[in-house]
């Protein structure tokens, strides 16, 4: 029972970690912002129309030089020296270009080259190298974690199989004796299946409950791992189905 409970908790924690990391990954590369400064005397409407129609662009914000200045003031209220310099020599109007969800380096490259094709831009502010590096590192970590989780899942599945096999062995011995005794084994088989399934369900609820409280009072605070209801529900149902499947296969394999 303790073995089964530990399997449930470890798998649930792994699934929660996976979804949290996936969420953080998506968040990090969601709506990437490219800042483009316009040349003086270019047609604002024409520029906006062009940029908005570019593929992978989610939305565009146009900012006048006064707006840029007030934004700078808001962001850096203590940098009076720079604010004064900007007042004397302000930035040209600019565009804040937000890309679609999860933009990979190829998409960025494509958008940047499209922007550079036209001569209405004075400068584009985007650190491609840094972005590519972060993207690559995150991808390596993400896939590494998936491989780790898959291995963990396989190991835990074997452990689960082992637990169920030993249970099936016990019932098999019982049924063998009862059969030799001339008794009816149907009731015992049904009791065995119902007992095991209800035990799985209870352990599952307890296991997910433990993970919920762990997340709420510890993991969220220190590791930013949040409890996610839907993945937990899917996990619960899949685990239950897997146990049921394993149980039936074990019983069949042992000729019960």
């Amino acid at each position, binding site marked *: 029972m303790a073995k089964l409970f530990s399997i449930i908790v470890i798998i649930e924690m792994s699934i929660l970690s996976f979804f949290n990391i996936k969420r953080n990954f998506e968040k990090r590369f969601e709506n990437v912002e490219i800042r483009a400064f316009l040349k003086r005397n270019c047609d604002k409407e024409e520029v906006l129309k062009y940029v908005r129609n570019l593929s992978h662009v989610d939305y565009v914000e146009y900012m006048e030089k006064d707006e840029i200045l007030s934004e700078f003031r808001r962001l850096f209220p203590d940098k009076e020296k720079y604010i004064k310099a900007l007042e004397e020599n302000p930035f040209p109007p600019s565009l804040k270009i937000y890309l679609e969800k999860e933009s990979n380096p190829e998409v960025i490259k494509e958008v940047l080259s499209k922007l550079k094709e036209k001569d209405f831009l004075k400068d584009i502010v985007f650190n491609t190298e840094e972005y590519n590096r972060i993207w690559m590192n995150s991808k390596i970590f993400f896939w590494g974690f998936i491989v780790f989780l898959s291995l963990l899942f396989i190991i835990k599945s074997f452990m689960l199989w082992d637990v169920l096999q030993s249970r099936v*062995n016990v019932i098999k011995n*019982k049924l063998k*004796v*009862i059969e*030799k*005794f*001339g*008794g009816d084994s149907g*009731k015992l088989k049904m009791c065995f299946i119902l007992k095991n399934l209800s035990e799985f369900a209870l352990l599952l609820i307890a296991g997910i409950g433990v993970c919920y409280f762990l997340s709420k009072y510890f993991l969220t605070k220190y590791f930013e791992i949040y409890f996610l209801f839907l993945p937990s529900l899917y996990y619960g149902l899949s685990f239950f189905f897997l146990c049921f499947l394993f149980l039936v296969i074990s019983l069949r394999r042992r000729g019960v």
Partner: protein
Amino acid sequence: MITFNSVTKSYGLRIILSDVNLCIKRGEFALICGDTGSGKTTFLKLIYMEEKPTKGEVEVMGISSKHLDKNKLKELRSKTSFITQDDNLIEDVNVYENIFLPLESIGKFSKEKAVKLLTKFGILNLLSEKASNLSAGERRIIQIVRELLKSPILMLCDEPFAVIDKKTEKILREILIQMNKTGVTIVMTTSKENPGLPCKRYELKNGKII
């Protein structure tokens, strides 16, 4: 009650029983004697329908080995007790469950009777003990108790006194005699020359009943 019609039983080339004809009447106390390997256990297994004859037919309580199905086998076994040499206990559970589960499966479990019999054999204290922790003698007694609680019409005993002490043997002897008096047919195998029981003796030699 039990009829052997030209029964031959062989395992591969080894012939255990050869053309055996025998009739054991209802209420009889039959003692099957013979040397080790003479086929005594096989003889009982044929009656319990655990083995099928290679040739011929065994008929027990009107059930023939030739027309045997699951239900008939169940019916036969629920009315027959078989004290085997391998004690047939469930290793992973305790003594109580070892008695309760099989008896409950045929609807014959009675707590009072079980306690009474276990007390008589002096093993009531073993109820919560796991079967795997018991000695050979204790295991045999548990099996005997379980089989006696079945309240059978036919009792098959394969060397029942083999691993038990004198005191237990005496109790079992008394119970068997008492059961036989109430009409239970008993077929018992032994290698002992004189078991001291009021029984009809059959000798198994070279695969034949003498």
